[in-house]
């Protein structure tokens, strides 16, 4: 032996990046719906869109004959599939977050996870990464793949009917779609981060039915407010927190009243200058820190 054995570096610890990577992988093993549900919905939507291409040649001929109203319809399937995937992803993210630190206590597996050298903070961060980063990324990828499939399918139908594909292509704004979608999902992810962080915190705390505990502190005051004062400030605050991200990203006024029409309408500076985004992220960080603190002290239920 030329190298003394004690010269070998003793394996002491893995870096946080490696621990986070394996923790996220574990989440995806456990929660396959995170990617399967958006994919399944996209497949259903594609099937319906494929059936609807029967009407495509007729529409294209009408457009060629000068029917401008028909042209707007050509983007319909792209928007539809994007909406279907986003809505599915939203529900998956909500239910994932509400179970994140609850299921492991219910099935007692928390005692197994805690027997390994992964800190509570790393675990909580890996679970927060699913709704805040992973699900938006999956949404973009699945939507993009589905939209490419629609493009190929409609182009084939056009060609098979002996029509000029330029007739179809010249009315699609896919460039805008493929820039706006990732941008909008990023803004939305940052915007909604405190909501998912809240759900994760409740999942660490509640003994049963985290969904109720997550909603009661907001729904009850909103109802009392409505009953006592006839106003809806709490409700509108919640609505803004839930859907404000998309409005910020996709409308000219940030209120969802004037939709964007071209790439130049996107205004990242305005979206990221909103103090609400950064305030929300600070609240999200506080919720996640509390969730890690709670997980440390929690026992199986």
């Amino acid at each position, binding site marked *: 032996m030329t190298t003394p054995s004690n010269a070998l570096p003793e394996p002491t610890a*893995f870096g946080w990046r490696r621990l986070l990577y394996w923790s996220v992988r*574990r989440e995806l093993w456990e929660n396959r719906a995170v990617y399967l549900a958006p994919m399944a919905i996209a497949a259903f939507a594609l099937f319906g869109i494929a059936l609807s291409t029967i009407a495509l040649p007729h529409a294209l001929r009408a457009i060629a004959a000068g029917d401008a109203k028909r042209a707007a319809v050509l983007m319909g399937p792209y928007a539809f599939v994007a909406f279907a995937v986003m809505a599915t992803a939203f529900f998956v993210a909500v239910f994932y977050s509400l179970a994140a630190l609850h299921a492991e206590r219910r099935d*007692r597996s928390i*005692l197994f996870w805690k*027997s390994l*050298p992964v*800190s509570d903070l790393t675990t909580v961060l890996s679970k927060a990464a699913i709704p805040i980063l992973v699900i938006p990324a999956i949404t973009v990828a699945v939507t993009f793949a589905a939209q490419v499939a629609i493009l190929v399918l409609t182009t084939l139908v056009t060609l098979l009917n002996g029509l000029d594909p330029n007739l179809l292509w010249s009315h699609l704004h896919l460039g805008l779609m493929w820039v706006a979608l990732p941008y909008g999902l990023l803004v939305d992810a940052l915007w909604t981060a405190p909501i998912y962080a809240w759900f994760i915190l409740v999942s660490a705390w509640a003994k049963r039915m985290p969904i109720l505990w997550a909603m009661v502190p907001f729904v009850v005051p909103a109802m009392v407010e409505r009953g006592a004062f006839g106003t809806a400030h709490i409700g509108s605050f919640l609505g803004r927190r839930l859907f404000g991200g998309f409005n910020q990203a996709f409308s000219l006024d940030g209120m969802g009243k004037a939709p964007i029409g071209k790439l130049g309408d996107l205004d990242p500076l305005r979206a990221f200058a909103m103090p609400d985004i950064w305030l929300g992220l600070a609240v999200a960080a506080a919720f996640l820190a509390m969730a890690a603190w709670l997980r440390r002290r929690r026992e199986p239920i």
Partner: protein
Amino acid sequence: MACIEARGLRKAYGKTLALDGVDLTVEAGRIVGLIGPNGAGKSTALSAMLGLTEFEGELKVLGRNPWTERDRLLRDVCFIADVAVLPGWIRVWQAVDYVAGVHPRFDRAKADGFLARTAIKRTSKVRELSKGMVAQLHLALVMAIDAKLLVLDEPTLGLDLLYRKQFYDTLLNDYFDSQRTIVVSTHQVDEIQHILTDVVFLNHGRVVLSASMEDLEARYLELVVGPQQVEAARALRPIYERRALARTLMLFDGVARDRLAALGEVRTPGVADLFVALMGPPNAGAEGAAA
């Protein structure tokens, strides 16, 4: 440095004292059986050692405070906290991959070797395995980790006799060496007493007895006497006696072997009998503590 060092270890859940001033020293290279009735504080003591619960008093595991230095400690400490804590959804290969991914001292080849000796399929989900197989899988994962301290809390609860025996045989033959320490709590004392080097009896959150097996054997003797010698034997003040058919079984603390040998057959007592002798009848005086 002792592997585990506890001084005045206390833990209260509300008004209930789970641990009431535990003093305990576990040296490295020992296999310690932590034995006590339900609610004696065994699991709480183990939880404190593993940094799963806050505690009062002094406790050092491998020289570290398990609560404040838990993340660091876990590289050197392994545990099976309970039976059936492996999540049902995980597949065998995923469990192996994950532990290999996060534990710097995990030896995948070792784990694969242990698993190859079982009937466990790598593609099975944990929920598809029998209880015994889940315990085998958990043990394979834990034994492949080069840890200094292994803590087992009722690791064979609910397993049949064959699996229980195999579990401890594997642990002793393929894992234990002088560098490692094992602390195990169980109700099935008889089955593990041959592998233990030390026993700790716990009752009402207190250590009733902490001794090595050699000390136990030197100090306690069991005498089997016929009816005619019973009175003579009683004069030597047994700490415990029970009838077995026509004969009487008595336990003595610190009585010379030759004095007992004159009265009947002298044996080394089983840990279970000793346990019963020292703990008294179940629940005597336990109502206050258990409420």
